């Protein structure tokens, strides 16, 4: 097996397979291959900044073969030597806890998932944070041990040396080099200082590879206990030896800020402010690009209708694919902004404080403090949120988090909330805002309550107790945040894109077939349309036909079929069709209702609200009464109506069982809650 098989699921032209010492006997491949260089380091060591600095936009995201663990890789030229640079997940030690860490360890150790040996990287760049030497040296000690076994040369990058210098911290790099048994290059990923020297050291080590041969465990008689203690003693000893001048100012600001941000009450208030600002930014800024995407999609649909004759093909492309995929793409700006804000917050060091202050609340319901980042992300979209649960070490904790995440109000629910709330309180902005907030709160409360229920039932036990590094605060790098946003968004599009495409086509087919023509209609319906056409109102005639068409389609029939089941919630058959159609993607109900109420699929919101409010049932009573709207609202807050999310749940939990369970419990919860809402509201309203 070549290294290419290990690192790359798909081998493209310029990634023909990196070279490796073990393949030197293969002259053909040796000519076209690049050595593999892996970046290893603690979380917060600035490893990813260094990677970004070295690769820029040339990097791409790939999966480790046979896993869902992603990493970034890219070609970098050191001097004249092109290498394949791989950014491994951050590690504290080589005895892994999370799936990401496990994969990183396997790559470093040169074994695959089953424990079989595979070529180790040709060189390891160990990234060390100069301002946090002792802690980083622990990993160094283990890494050097492993490098001795695998024969991989190591180059240590002493990062953040600009920050160290500014705070008067002096480190003897030469002495450190002796202790680590490898070249040590002071540098700054932020300013780019020292990268030349790194490049030279990497090239030299690749041409004449020498694995380190020093002993990195303290063997003095005063040491006690396990290998851990010996390594820490070694790290402490080395760091005392190489730090020529300590710093008093380092970490002082962090200490001051943390007096507030980790405070049990002020910290929570601070968290609320940060979150409020983040979401305000997401919702206010994303509105513009969302409008552009919508008009782009509408434009593409119109353009298609000029090129293609009217018919099933056009309908599939314009309504099914462009409409369906566009309906999800429109949320991409919000998702990107969320990723961007999270990247900034993470880089600044704040996110770990947020986990700290939230932990006390979260663990009561059996969720770990770390679950709050996914829970936050879920307010934009459940899919990236579920993927973000990978930072949670414990499987029980991770599963509990994944199960409740889709209860958070995602962007796709917002158009539905907006429609229903406009129906409820069109001229009362305060009440409207209160109900909007209430819908969000209901999602959060339901998620916490369900987590508590799972803790008592199917997922017994407590969340693993919190233990998290609180790195020093620093100004986040805009460049890193932008790169990370770009990356994560691409991963989102790639992961969800395929599922969304397939689902869009299926839903289109259900709503389109069997076809209804004018001849299939009852004489009265037919004459109604003919009259409209004769009066020159072709649009109204088309809309009426579309309404009948949807009514007779598979989706329409299913909707009418399940209507008796939904009647106790106050839903009539049109709403039922809307509910059924939105099990693929919830925002679909807006366009479904628009068609069913004769506005065509592009009726504007104000027109739709007016039409819905005026609509009556067969007895002449209004259909969208207050209890019905509230019941629909509660149903949409709680129901699992997003097939792409289900696909991701399956992928991340490894079984359709959990995805089905998630669907089942959320639907049952939505049904019962909507039932209670409708019946109670009916009694109160009278």
């Amino acid at each position, binding site marked *: 097996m070549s290294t290419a098989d290990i690192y790359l699921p798909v081998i493209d032209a310029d990634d023909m397979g990196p070279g490796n010492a073990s393949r030197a006997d293969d002259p053909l491949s040796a000519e076209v291959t690049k050595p593999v260089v892996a970046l290893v380091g603690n979380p917060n060591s600035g490893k990813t900044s260094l990677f970004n600095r070295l690769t820029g936009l040339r990097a791409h995201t790939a999966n480790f073969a046979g896993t869902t663990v992603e990493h970034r890789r890219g070609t970098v030229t050191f001097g004249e030597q092109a290498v394949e640079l791989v950014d491994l997940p951050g590690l504290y030690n080589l005895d892994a806890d999370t799936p990401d860490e496990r994969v990183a360890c396997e790559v470093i150790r040169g074994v695959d998932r089953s424990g079989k040996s595979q070529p180790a990287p040709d060189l390891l760049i160990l990234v060390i944070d100069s301002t946090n030497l002792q802690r980083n040296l*622990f990993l160094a000690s283990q890494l050097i041990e492993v490098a001795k076994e695998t024969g991989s040369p190591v180059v240590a990058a002493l990062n953040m040396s600009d920050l160290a210098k500014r705070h008067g911290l002096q480190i003897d790099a030469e002495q450190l080099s002796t202790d680590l048994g490898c070249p040590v290059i002071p540098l700054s990923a932020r300013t780019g200082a020292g990268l030349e020297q790194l490049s030279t050291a990497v090239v030299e080590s690749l041409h004449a590879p020498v694995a380190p041969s020093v002993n990195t465990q303290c063997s003095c008689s005063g040491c006690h206990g396990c290998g851990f*203690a010996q390594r820490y003693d070694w790290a402490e000893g080395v760091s005392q030896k190489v730090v020529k001048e300590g710093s008093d100012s380092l970490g002082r600001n962090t*200490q001051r800020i*943390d007096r507030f941000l980790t405070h049990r009450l002020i910290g929570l208030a601070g968290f609320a402010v940060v979150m409020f600002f983040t979401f305000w930014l997401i919702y206010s800024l994303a509105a513009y690009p969302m409008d552009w995407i919508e008009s782009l999609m509408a434009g593409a649909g119109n353009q298609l209708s000029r090129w293609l004759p009217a018919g099933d093909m056009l309908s599939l492309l314009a309504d099914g694919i462009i409409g369906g995929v566009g309906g999800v793409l429109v949320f991409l700006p919000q998702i990107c902004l969320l990723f961007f804000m999270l990247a900034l917050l993470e880089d600044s060091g704040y996110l770990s404080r947020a*986990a700290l202050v939230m*932990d006390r609340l979260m663990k009561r319901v059996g969720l770990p403090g770390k679950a709050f980042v996914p829970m936050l992300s879920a307010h934009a979209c459940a899919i990236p949120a579920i993927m973000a649960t990978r930072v949670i070490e414990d499987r029980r904790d991770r599963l509990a988090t994944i199960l409740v995440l889709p209860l958070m109000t995602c962007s796709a629910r917002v158009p539905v909330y907006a429609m229903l709330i406009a129906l409820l309180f069109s001229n009362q902005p305060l009440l409207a805002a209160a109900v909007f907030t209430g819908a969000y709160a209901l999602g959060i409360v339901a998620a916490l309550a369900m987590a508590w229920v799972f803790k008592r039932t199917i997922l017994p036990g407590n969340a*693993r107790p919190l*233990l998290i590094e*609180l790195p020093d605060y620093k100004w986040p790098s805009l460049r890193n945040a932008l790169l990370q946003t770009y990356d994560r968004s691409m991963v989102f599009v790639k992961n969800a894109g395929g599922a969304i495409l397939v689902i869009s086509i299926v839903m289109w087919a259900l709503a389109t077939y069997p076809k209804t023509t004018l001849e299939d209609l009852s004489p009265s319906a037919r004459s109604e349309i003919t009259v409209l056409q004769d009066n020159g109102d072709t649009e109204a005639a088309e809309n009426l036909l579309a309404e009948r068409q949807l009514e007779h389609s598979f989706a329409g029939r299913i909707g009418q079929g399940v209507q008796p089941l939904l009647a106790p919630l106050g839903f009539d058959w049109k709403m039922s069709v809307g509910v059924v159609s939105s099990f693929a993607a919830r925002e679909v109900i807006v366009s479904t209702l628009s068609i069913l109420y004769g506005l065509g699929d592009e009726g504007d919101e104000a027109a739709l609200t007016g039409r819905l409010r005026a609509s009556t049932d067969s007895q002449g009573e209004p259909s969208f009464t207050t209890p019905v709207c509230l019941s629909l609202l509660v149903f949409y807050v709680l129901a699992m109506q997003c097939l792409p999310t289900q696909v991701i749940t399956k992928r991340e939990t490894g079984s359709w069982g959990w995805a089905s369970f998630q669907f089942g419990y959320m639907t049952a919860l939505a049904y019962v809650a909507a039932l209670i809402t409708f019946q109670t509201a009916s009694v109160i309203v009278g």
Partner: protein
Amino acid sequence: MVDPAPLSEAPPDCLLRVVRVEVDPADMGRVKALGICVGRQVTVVQRGDPLVIRIVGTRLGISSHLASAVFVKSA
């Protein structure tokens, strides 16, 4: 402070040393990887649940449940 005492009950801003770690085996790996290990110096920065401590040169947030199984004495 009675020596040795659980970290969760140690006074703030005193230099202490870890003498025993008796956390659940499932948490042992994480705890040690972050430096909470026999022989290390530790200072409590903020008490409560979770606590903020300083160990191996960095600040850590640690739940009091874990901290109650880490025993320290004055360094």
